[in-house]
């Protein structure tokens, strides 16, 4: 199939960017979206032009490195699918496709489709951890955890930190990401040591990074490739006031 792509090109963090139009020919429907971009880049290189920079690593939907807004939707039109797992059979011959980077003040564009997600790392550093004893490994079943709690923690832990929730949110809010981390650790006995301060510390860091506030549009959970539920956001809202009035931060 033949496609017309409108891709955001920006040569560096402070450079002025713009959408540029490219035509790609003979795209196979079996290619992944990133492979299609690889083909475009080969083409650009042979013509002596600068290839389109985009992030990727595992290309199997588990690392959270890839990410671009495809036709107005982070990771593209499919639900629960990362850009690397999106295949060209989703598109048809003659389609026009807009490809843009995540847009958020806290995710500055480094180049073309690559953004700096260091703000997520700084949020994690504020509370995305648990205290454990070092030394011998504990007996596997020493801590009883109900199946329901284990499942809930697992649901939240599925977050791969891609940032699609921020990209989808009209307010560039990082509530879903942060709530997934707070909800994951808060659901488990091992996470209780820091429970009373975790939400507080991570949320204040999120604000400091310049992410917006949640207005409950639920665009995040619809865009999340891992289907993280906005229920975790409600849980974090509760944990936050609990910290505010009962925490020992």
């Amino acid at each position, binding site marked *: 199939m033949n496609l017309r792509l*409108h891709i*955001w090109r920006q040569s560096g963090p402070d450079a002025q960017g713009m*959408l540029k139009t490219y035509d790609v020919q003979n795209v196979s429907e079996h290619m992944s979206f990133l492979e299609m971009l690889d083909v475009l880049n080969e083409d650009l290189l042979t013509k002596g032009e600068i290839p389109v920079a985009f992030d990727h690593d595992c290309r199997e939907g588990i690392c959270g490195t890839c990410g671009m*807004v495809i*036709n*107005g*939707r982070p990771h593209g*039109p499919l639900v629960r699918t990362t850009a690397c797992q999106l295949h060209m059979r989703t598109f048809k011959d003659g389609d026009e496709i*807009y490809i*843009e980077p995540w*847009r*958020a*003040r*806290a995710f500055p564009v480094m180049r073309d489709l690559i953004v700096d997600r260091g703000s997520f790392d700084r949020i994690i550093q504020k509370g995305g951890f648990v205290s454990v004893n070092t030394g011998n490994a504990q007996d596997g079943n020493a801590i009883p955890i109900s199946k329901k709690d284990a499942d809930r923690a697992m649901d939240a832990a599925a977050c791969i930190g891609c940032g699609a929730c921020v990209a*989808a949110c*009209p*307010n*560039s*809010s990082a509530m879903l990401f942060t709530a997934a981390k707070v909800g994951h650790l808060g659901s488990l006995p091992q996470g209780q040591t820091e429970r009373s301060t975790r939400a*507080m510390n991570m*949320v*204040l860091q*999120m*604000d400091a990074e*310049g*992410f*917006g*506030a*949640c*207005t*409950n*549009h*639920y*665009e995040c*959970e*619809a*865009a999340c490739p891992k289907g993280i539920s*906005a*229920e975790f*956001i*409600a*849980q*974090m*809202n*509760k*944990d*936050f*006031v609990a910290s*505010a009035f009962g925490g*020992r*931060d």
Partner: protein
Amino acid sequence: MKAFGEIWRSNIFQKWLMALTGLLLVGFLLGHLSGNLLVFLGKEDINSYAHGLRTMGHGMVIWIVRLGLLSMFVLHVTAAITLSRRNRAARPQSYAKVTPRKSTVASRTMLYSGLLLLSYVLYHLAHFTWGAVHAGNYAGQIGWEYTLADGTLVPDVYRMVVASFQVPLIAVLYVLSMVMVGLHLNHAIASAFQTMGVTNQRLVPLIRRIGPALSFIVAAGFSAVPLAILAGVVK
């Protein structure tokens, strides 16, 4: 220990303030609505009800309620404006193409429906409370007294309402404003419970259905009075 000021300024705390004040305002609206519907029972009912409100607790209660409403409004609106500005600043460069999935017209226009609501409230107060606009229909004017069944002389609120809404422009303005209220609450009511951390999976689907339904009842209930008067059903 974090200072309370830092917590107060945080996005989530501001959201809580907006949700709490918003829900209290919704509670006020429901009370206000049930009072308004007395128009359908007749002159005596609404006039004695209005008189009762003004004189309850030697006229103290109405001032306490007014003060409460004013502070809720101030908190709600300042939080709304603060957060909306932050949200705008959080995305300096917008997308060339956006394809929403779950947000609604109501959720995307909360600031605008809110600001229109604010201007409506000022107009509404100027009309019925202060008699500053449409003064010819003001209940407080000389000659418009009504004698209650117990002989008390009170302002004729019923006449003020009927005379006002017989003017098509006024009735239409009110009905349009109630559509605005409906739009704001369509998103707001369920949203507030999410903000306040309701996660129970039996409650959440219920709330997301009751919110929009309640917003429709509020908008339709308030609109019924001007519409009935304009149609000549109530006169």
